[in-house]
């Protein structure tokens, strides 16, 4: 389990504030850009009227307004939900890759924070699980406002673990995520494919809607390097020296082949895999989340 930092650590609070601000900024900016709120639904809390269209439930027609204006309007309500969002964040050593300025871990934790903020804003219960070769920290999903603070504090205190065991860790996480909901796995998934699929199977077995956010460093995906390079493995610290341009073609072929296999396994299990690189904005990730939320 991850140890809790001292509450008097200025760096911790500084990092926390930044992460919260960053998450808020991302979410608010994302919502502001939407023309129509995608998560407005039918609930007990009135939100607005709209014109009736064929197929609308007649129970939601505002008859009084019809009497006054002789036009059919239906009432819309803010959705009330008790959906659970489980954030599973990979903190293994490979997530420390930061060749383009932002590490995958930072990018992933930011994404997790943004999703948590977005979910809590809709009164969803959000939980957090940090894992590497095992589950390092687990927060049960709650919809309380201070849940975000708990999540942010846990994320900010995160440090990568060198080893990775996706099968074991996801299995443990599936055991911990008992309430059905959306499971957002934020990882680079750089592990053996059977281990990953075994973990995803465990999550799917628990009836979770699984979102696989695969975080890439641009250099890992495209290897845009030239010259004699000494490559160091972030988990094993193994060094390989080679000419990048000489191996690029075969490397990309191997990576794409692996991506294709992973995509195929995800599709077979009804898992949506969303690829993100650390130099991309998080809008697409949030939008994907919302789309999946409507399915639940």
């Amino acid at each position, binding site marked *: 389990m991850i140890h809790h930092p001292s509450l008097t650590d200025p760096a911790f609070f500084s990092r926390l504030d930044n992460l919260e601000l960053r998450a808020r900024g991302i979410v608010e900016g994302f919502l502001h850009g939407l023309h129509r709120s995608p998560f407005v639904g039918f609930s007990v809390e009135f939100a607005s009227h709209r014109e009736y269209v064929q197929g609308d439930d007649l129970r939601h027609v505002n008859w009084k307004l019809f009497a006054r204006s002789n036009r059919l309007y239906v009432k819309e309500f803010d959705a009330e939900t008790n959906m659970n969002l489980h954030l599973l964040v990979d903190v293994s050593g490979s997530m420390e890759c930061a060749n383009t300025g932002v590490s995958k871990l930072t990018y992933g934790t930011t994404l997790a924070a943004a999703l948590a903020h977005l979910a809590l804003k809709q009164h969803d219960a959000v939980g957090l699980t940090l894992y590497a070769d095992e589950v390092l920290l687990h927060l049960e999903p709650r919809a309380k406002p201070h849940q975000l603070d708990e999540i942010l504090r846990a994320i900010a205190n995160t440090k990568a673990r060198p080893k990775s065991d996706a099968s074991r860790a996801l299995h443990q996480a599936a055991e911990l995520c008992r309430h059905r909901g959306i499971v957002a796995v934020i990882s680079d998934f750089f592990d053996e494919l059977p281990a990953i699929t075994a973990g995803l199977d465990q999550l799917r077995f628990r009836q979770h809607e699984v979102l696989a956010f695969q975080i890439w*460093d641009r250099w890992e995906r495209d290897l845009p390097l030239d010259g004699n390079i000494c*490559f*160091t493995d972030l988990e094993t610290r*193994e060094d390989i020296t*080679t000419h990048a341009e*000489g*191996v690029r073609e075969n490397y990309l072929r191997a*990576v794409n082949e692996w991506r294709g296999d992973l995509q195929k396994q995800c599709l077979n299990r009804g898992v949506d895999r969303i690829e993100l690189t650390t130099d991309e904005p998080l809008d697409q990730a949030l939008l994907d989340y919302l789309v999946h939320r409507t399915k639940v």
Partner: protein
Amino acid sequence: MPDFLQTSFLLGAAAIAVPILIHLFFRLKTKRVELGTIRFLRVVLEENARRRKVMRWLLLALRMGFVALLAALFARPFWTAAATGGDRDLLVILIDQSATMQLKGDSGRLIDQAVAEARRSIESTGRNTRCEVAFFDHAVHPIGADGERKPDGDALLRRLQAPEVTFGATNFGAAIAWARDICVKSPAGAKRLHLFTDLQRSGLDWTEVEPLPADVQASLHDLGKPVVNNVAVTEVRTPRLWVRPGESSSVRASILHGGAFALEEVSVVMEVGRVPEREPSSTQANQPVVTDFAKLAERITRRERVKLEPGATVVLDFELPTLSRGLWQGRVAVEHPDDLPFDNQRYFAVSATPAHRVLVVHGGEGPTSPLTETYFLEAALRLSNDDAEFTDSPFLPTVLPYGDGAGFPTLADFDAVVLANVPAVKDADAAQLAAFVRSGGGLLVFTGDKVTAAATASLDRAGLTVGSIDDVKIAVDLPWRLNGWDERHPIFQPLSDPQHGDLRRLIFAAYTDIAPAADAVVLAEFNTKAPAVLERRVGQGTVVWVTTSCGREWSDWCRTALFLPTVHQLLGYEVGLTSGGRVRPQLMDAVAIAAGEAQAMVESQTQRASQPVDAADTPGVRQFERFAEVTNISPRESETERCTREEFENRFALRFADDETPASLMAAVGNVELRHDEFWHWVACALLAVLLLEGFVGNRTTA
């Protein structure tokens, strides 16, 4: 074998280390990158590890090869000749050693100057240059010829010495032909020819010569002097070389004045004397004897004073006194100091000897009659041949009817013996006859009806037969004819000329069939392929068998016009007349030219066998046992007129380089100009190919 002209550029091959250093440098200078996807990289590298290793070494080899080829390109590679033991260049030096090269020049004799310049040329050549050096006059005398190993380097320089005295005539054609053969046989490489000569015009007028190969760079070193003061005896002729004792003769001498100014009262001296009798025990029989003029007997000296105009030839006649028996040798000399003393005298000889005594033996009895076997033979031997220079017959026959029972007389008094259809020669006579032949006497045998195997048993035992004697072959319907003969043999050489008659017209009714012995030579044969004339060497002498009769029993050929010359040739061969007679004048250049052709027939000639072919290397009179040889220099050599360089070039279809260029400089120039055997362009192509391949491999090679 490849070699390089600019070997210093090969030091640039040390730059081969540059690719290695670059490789090591960039290996140390690496950028460190942390990735989480090393496992993909590892898979990729493990997949092609062997291929990449091969490609890496190939790439390194290509880069090192590129540097090596670049160094080789600048070093100007060329092919050397493997056939000459690695020699790449050829330097041919021809030094004129004709008699006129003894002319005094600014620094000694011309031949000495030529040798000195030739030595400098050799010393200035590179170590891989093959040098072929030859002196030439009327023949070519290569240094290191005669089967010796070719000298090289210092050995060649040590052997390159100017001859003390030379008497040869100039023959540029022989020298150019020799040089051409050397150049043609030499593989690719720079070929240079240096000719050191005085450009004597008379040396041009010889046989046609194939031109030098086009890639030969010829240089002319003209050492001659524009004006030469020369007075020469160009010819001495006696109307008869062989006179009877007590007869007289005369000498005609031609005096040439090659100088620019007329000469008054030039003294011309003729001296002649009899050569003392040769002492058989003093020297070997086959070794020539040169008699000093001071030791001549009955010496006579005649002196004439003549006026010589420039370029004119004056003819003088000297009457000889009555000559007693023996060999008379003499000389005509001009007593005038000039630039070329070698041609100031010329030799002659006259033999005052009786006719060759021939013992003609026939198997009949009684005095000679028209029915006698040797009637026509004796008559033919007593007659003189039409083209002989003497009026009397060279033979003095003595007829011996062996059927009377008388034995042979002392054969030492005869030069040759003829047996005509003689049966059953007594053993004592056969033994004497064999001894006579072995000591150098000649034996001519005609067969006939009495000559059978049994009848010639004594001759066979004495070793005087030429094979096994079989039956007599008698023509039934058509007569036998001569079908072929050795046209190069001295007996048949003049008879092979159709203008002298056709031996095929002779017909024979019968002949004695003889199976030739192993050491016998068939000189002529009938149309039945049976031998007609056979020869066999016995000791110093020769036995010649004619397998038909000399009388009219088997043929009427003794009554034809061909009988006399044929018989004279047969007996003349036995006594040495067919090889030149008792006095054989010759010119030194003619001897050299005929030496090769004469070599074949020398083997079958008794007299020539005792005469070395190349004995006549100095002018003079040499006395052999049965003849004398008079050797004089060629009158061509006395003509000191020079040809121009252009005439020489046109004559031999060559083009000289600038003759003002020193030989050493010419040798140096050969390393600067483009050589035809260089292959730098191929190296450049290889360089380009390696460059392209390096790029191709480099783009596909990972570390």
